[in-house]
């Protein structure tokens, strides 16, 4: 059985503002980096899930952190997962991946995702409310 993966709410999309590195210019930090691929479940197993999304390269610090607030009640996203991701100054977009742990098999979780720079300053808007369901005990997503 595959877990249900949906993004329930509209993802906030800001102005494009794709950073260019042509002509040797330093990458410019977009005023408000936009989500390019909405947060979604990349893989899940054994109480661990990885959520993945991409957004305009936020520039600034070398390391940014994907931050996911989550919980099994959409009105109470009380848990927080935070993972370092390194930007590549030559890439127009940055992929964020966040590792969530301590999840229960077969449980549906709700989340909102965002990113912050190395000093904790927000990179842009938070995503809308998303949801995913953990695979059953001993199962993996994607299935192997």
């Amino acid at each position, binding site marked *: 059985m595959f877990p249900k993966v949906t993004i329930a709410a509209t993802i906030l999309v800001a102005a494009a503002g794709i950073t260019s*590195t042509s002509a*040797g210019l330093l990458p410019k930090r977009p005023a408000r980096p936009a989500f390019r691929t909405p947060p979604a479940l*990349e*893989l899940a*197993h*054994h*109480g*661990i899930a*990885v959520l993945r999304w991409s957004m305009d390269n936020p520039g600034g*610090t*070398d*390391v940014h952190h*994907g931050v996911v607030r989550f919980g099994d009640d959409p009105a109470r996203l009380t848990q927080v997962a*935070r*993972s*370092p*991701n*390194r*930007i*590549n*100054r*030559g*890439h*127009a*977009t940055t*992929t*964020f*991946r*966040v*590792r969530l*742990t301590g999840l229960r098999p077969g449980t549906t979780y709700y989340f909102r995702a965002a990113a912050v*720079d*190395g*000093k*904790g300053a927000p990179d842009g808007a938070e995503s809308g409310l998303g949801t995913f369901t953990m695979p059953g005990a001993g199962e993996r997503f994607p299935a*192997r």
Partner: protein
Amino acid sequence: MRLAAAVCLLAACSNDPPGQATPDPTIYDPYPPNVLPPDLDAEIQRVRAENATIFERTVAEWHALPPLTPVGNPPVFQGSGYNSIRVLGTLMNFDENMSIHKDRACSFCHMPYAGFNGPIPSLNLTAVAYPGSAQYRLGKRIPQRYPYATFFPVLAYNSDQGLFFGGNFWDGRSTGYILQSPNAQQAQHPPVDPNELGFADTACIAYRLSQAEYRPLFEGLFGPGSLAIAWPRDTEAICATPAGAASFGGNTTPIELSDDDRTKANVVYQHWGQAISLYQSSTHVNAFSSKFDAFLAGQYTLTPDEQAGYDLFRGKANCNSCHLDGRGSAVGSTDTSAAADVTPPFTCFGYANLGLPLNPAVAIFYESTPDAVGFTPNPDGFSFRDLGLGTFLRSGPGSAANPNSDWTPFAPGADGAMQVLTVRNVALTPAACPTTDAGRVDAQGAPVPYFQKAFFHNGYAKSLKQLVHFYNTRDLFAYPVTSGHCPTGTTEKVDCWPQPEVPNNIDMTFGNLGLTEREEDLIVTFMETLTDGFTTPFPNADTFTGTCATGGSAATQGNDHLIAAPPLPPCAADICGVPPLPGPATIP
């Protein structure tokens, strides 16, 4: 069974080749079978002989140096000063007398033909750390490569980035704060590391230098009285007794010197670090002579596979977000940028927690009982966890004291972080064994001999293929098991990666890169273009007299030497119980 082949623990009796001896009770051997390889004693002697070859070559080079003539003020040894210090640093680096039993040089763990990695294939396959002069005390990580380490700046916390940059060693403990050179300061650690050269007192270096045949070179450079120290009568005995011996009672200056002589010995110790660092910064180590350097200079065209690997390295695989290549990047388009730097370091000089599993083959886990002189290398046993930079920031066990308390609050964010090494020379091997990876065949279909290395700080990966595969699939094939316990139907390092040793701060830039098998191989092909010695021979890389390996597969290389981790006790209090505490997760 290892015999008393190389050294005695208590006395300076080991400068001779091994004989047919009976087991020596002073040998420290707390290891279960398969941690130390059966050919270890023979391999130690092989490396010592190779080391002697380089030392003798360098002695000849010293005798051929022009005289030292100071010119101007401040005086400069015009024309000859640079090479004279380089030669001095080389002599020091390859001098076995700079260890308690006069049987280990710095280079014992860092031979040129291995890219200055560990030179013993069977040890790289098993315990990964190397035996020091007090046999068999071993360290906790693989020997770190010398090349390009001198480019790391003094350790600093960049508050704009929220990151540490610089330093030397996997955990950054050589900050460079005094000598303003992390590399020079790095050279000051192994002489007094109980598991390495093993001196109890830093002054033992000045003492042994005062007896060295190249003493005139040292004094010519640093002054005729620089080694003139009134040594107490027990100096020889102290310098032949392993650091940590109970008889020292924790005293780190057991040689009783006058204040003036202690100061003089300290200055000698600074020159020791600086001279070795000059050697390591010279073209004898930082050669910039790889295919890739020739490519940047417009003198070599990458093959289609090398170019494809390079495109993946800076594109889909995103390797150059940490291993900076001096050029732009592109995903899904052609990069037309010019090189902004023709000597790219292939490191960001930073730190990252790669989420590697605990490697239960690392010798340090077993060194939890006292040796014959009462020293216990790792009282924590399997409760030891390698938090890398995090442990250093807390001045924790197995590291060094953190000299800047302003850094300590950042420890939880640095737990598990190890230095990002340059990719340069990761693939350097002896000419007779031209690859690190098993299973290669040449154009005629004949097997290509390989030289067994170990990769990552704990040597968990045994081939470059495994290294790239780890970055590619760490999260995809993750299992909540420890090494040696992958589920039936899976193969460790192929489609099963055991849980991270340190679950906090795991760098998620990689872990499910979506590379195909072919793309992984292409990245390895590109990494091999970073091996020095293409445009000019790599100095002293011709000394290997050991045996290459053949057969097997790079994907499963070394798996027949896996050691199953025992049930792990919780992380020790002197590591994980020291404020600021690790978080958010508890380190298991």
